[in-house]
């Protein structure tokens, strides 16, 4: 950590204060630019950004339309992509470059702790310029697109709003896999069948397990007596549909849009079969209906896959084959957070379709600026370590 004693300001090389360069390199100018960028950043997070956010904001607050129009004319609804913000970033880079150039000459005139700090701040400033330069490289030469494939299909280009990106190779989706976390043992996340017997004031929950008999035993049953009723789940369908033509029950999809269970209830010398619907608790069709005192409720757990971001999805992965003149040159499985680069194009697992598990959407990014930016990151940490760790340490050594 730094110490105030060894932080005396080294004298700035005599630069005519009124020269344009001197002005550009001055701390005052840099602070003004940073302040302007900061204000723009605040605006860019507080004002709705982009046509979608603006439209949804106006839906909720129609009275804000005049204000929003003014903000939009001022360019405040697209801050980070507006020309003036880009200009600000360039001025920022110019100020840093000027300051860095001016500081360079100073390094040789310093020694010890001061030198560590001057070199460190020099490196830090250079690293910021590198990061910004990397961003420019991305804007000028970067490409970004989406590839949608079914298993076995081959793509030679990626879709992009402007123009498709033609790849210098082709890519085949060999396999898509979706891995789920094991469902927790607790009943909170699973399907339940709730049984109610009004007259006996009885309420019980059974897990939905196919072909397992569950007994309904009222509290006033004498010991050793037969259970009053036996309940068995015969069938589960996630998306109930009745096919009128064949008279059969089907599942329209694997999504739990209309989950239902078919149960059999045996007791009192009769057996009833009936459907119980999670979404329609009062709609229970009996067949062979013998009147029985039991009422059923099917409490379906929300399906993990439709619960969006909280879903216990462990991973989704695509195995890709990269083909050049019909030869497989590389095979790689990519997943979220583990992309793969081939010839400068990086493939990211983007999304999948819960209704079609043979389908995968990939993002393809070509960003030649990344090494520049990452180089900047490494330099920045090195520079900061010099300023905040090495410098103060040398300073304290010199004092003892």
């Amino acid at each position, binding site marked *: 950590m730094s110490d105030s004693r060894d932080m005396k300001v080294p004298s700035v090389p005599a630069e005519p204060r009124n020269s344009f360069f001197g002005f550009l390199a001055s701390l005052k100018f840099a602070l003004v630019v940073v302040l302007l960028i900061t204000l723009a950043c605040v605006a860019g997070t507080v004002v709705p950004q982009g046509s979608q956010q603006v439209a949804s904001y106006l839906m909720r607050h129609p009275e804000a339309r005049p204000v929003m129009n003014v903000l939009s004319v001022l360019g405040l609804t697209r801050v980070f992509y507006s020309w003036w913000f880009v200009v600000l970033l360039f001025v920022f880079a110019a100020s840093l470059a000027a300051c860095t150039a001016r500081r360079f000459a100073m390094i040789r005139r310093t020694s010890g702790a001061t030198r560590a700090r001057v070199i460190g701040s020099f490196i830090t400033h250079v690293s910021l310029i590198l990061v910004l330069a990397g961003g420019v490289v991305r804007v000028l030469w970067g490409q970004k697109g989406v590839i949608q494939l079914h298993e076995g299909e081959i793509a030679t280009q990626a879709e992009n709003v402007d123009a498709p990106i033609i790849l210098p190779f082709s890519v085949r989706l060999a396999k898509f896999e979706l891995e789920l*976390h094991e469902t927790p043992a607790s009943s909170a996340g699973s399907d339940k069948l709730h049984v109610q017997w009004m007259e006996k004031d009885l309420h019980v929950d059974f897990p939905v397990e196919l072909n397992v008999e569950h007994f309904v035993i009222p509290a006033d049953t004498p010991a050793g007596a037969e259970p009053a009723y036996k309940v068995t789940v015969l069938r589960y369908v996630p998306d109930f549909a009745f096919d009128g033509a064949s008279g059969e029950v089907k599942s329209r999809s694997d999504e739990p849009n209309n989950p239902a269970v078919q149960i059999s209830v045996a007791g009192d010398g009769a057996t009833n079969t009936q459907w119980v619907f999670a979404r329609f608790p009062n709609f229970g069709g009996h067949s062979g209906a013998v009147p029985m005192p039991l009422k059923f409720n099917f409490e379906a757990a929300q399906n993990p896959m439709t619960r969006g971001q909280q879903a216990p999805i462990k991973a989704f992965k695509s195995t890709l084959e990269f083909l050049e003149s019909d030869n497989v040159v590389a095979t790689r499985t990519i997943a979220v957070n583990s992309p793969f680069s081939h010839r400068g194009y990086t493939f990211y697992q983007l999304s999948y379709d819960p209704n079609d598990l043979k389908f995968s959407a990939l993002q393809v990014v070509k960003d030649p600026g990344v090494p520049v930016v990452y180089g900047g990151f490494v330099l920045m940490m090195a520079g900061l370590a010099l300023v905040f*760790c090495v410098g103060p340490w040398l300073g304290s050594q010199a004092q003892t």
Partner: protein
Amino acid sequence: MTLLFNLSLATYFVALVCAVVFLMSRARFFDGAANLLILAGGVIQTVYLGVRWAQAGRAPFSNMFESLVLFAWAIAAVYLVLRIRTRLPWLTAAAAALSALAMAHASTFESEIRPLMPALQSNWLSFHVMTCFLGYGGFAISALVAVGFLVADRKGSAVQAETKTSLEAVLTQTISFGFLFLTLGILTGAVWANSAWGTYWSWDPKETWSLITWFIYAAFLHCRFMRGWRGRRAAWISIIGFLSVLFTYYGVNFLLSGLHSYA
């Protein structure tokens, strides 16, 4: 598990009580007790985080609950490191209070260990959260010091100039520490974003606010070192900086929406 959590909360709270008793009675025993209790609270929390890490099979830094626990931990850690060289009894009380507050606030959030969505399963993310919160811990302590300075500096105060100078030095130290770790946090976050989404920066509100915070503290450091800013002006910038930290952490989650809104 819950026992360790409650124990560390209680330990910080008792530390606060001891520190306040020391401020009022000047009985040295209570100063020692308060500092040992903060150390104990930190150790218990470290064990708690370790157990949670083992149970979850991943770093326990992924939602509001876990991050608040980490925040309390970082505040205690930064305070304890600072305490090696600098003794400020009122800071003992303030740091214990802040850690206890963060833990108490954490207890209002859902603490169940949940599986992570794939985008959050990344070592870079663990580094990112860890470094950001160490930085936030440094900034939290610096804000406490800045408030202390403003109180010491008010008209008619009997505090000696020497004490105030040492407070200024502590302010600079803690902000330098926070800045180093915030920078590391932003950079590791960028690397993570690039490996998850193919973009290292997308002007998402949380990213943008962390940049705003970074700019404020960079301005502080330049004014401090190049212009020799000290005193009330420096204290106020560091308080504004910490308000920006709080907004980055809370405000963005609850007032603005974006990529980071899950945590």
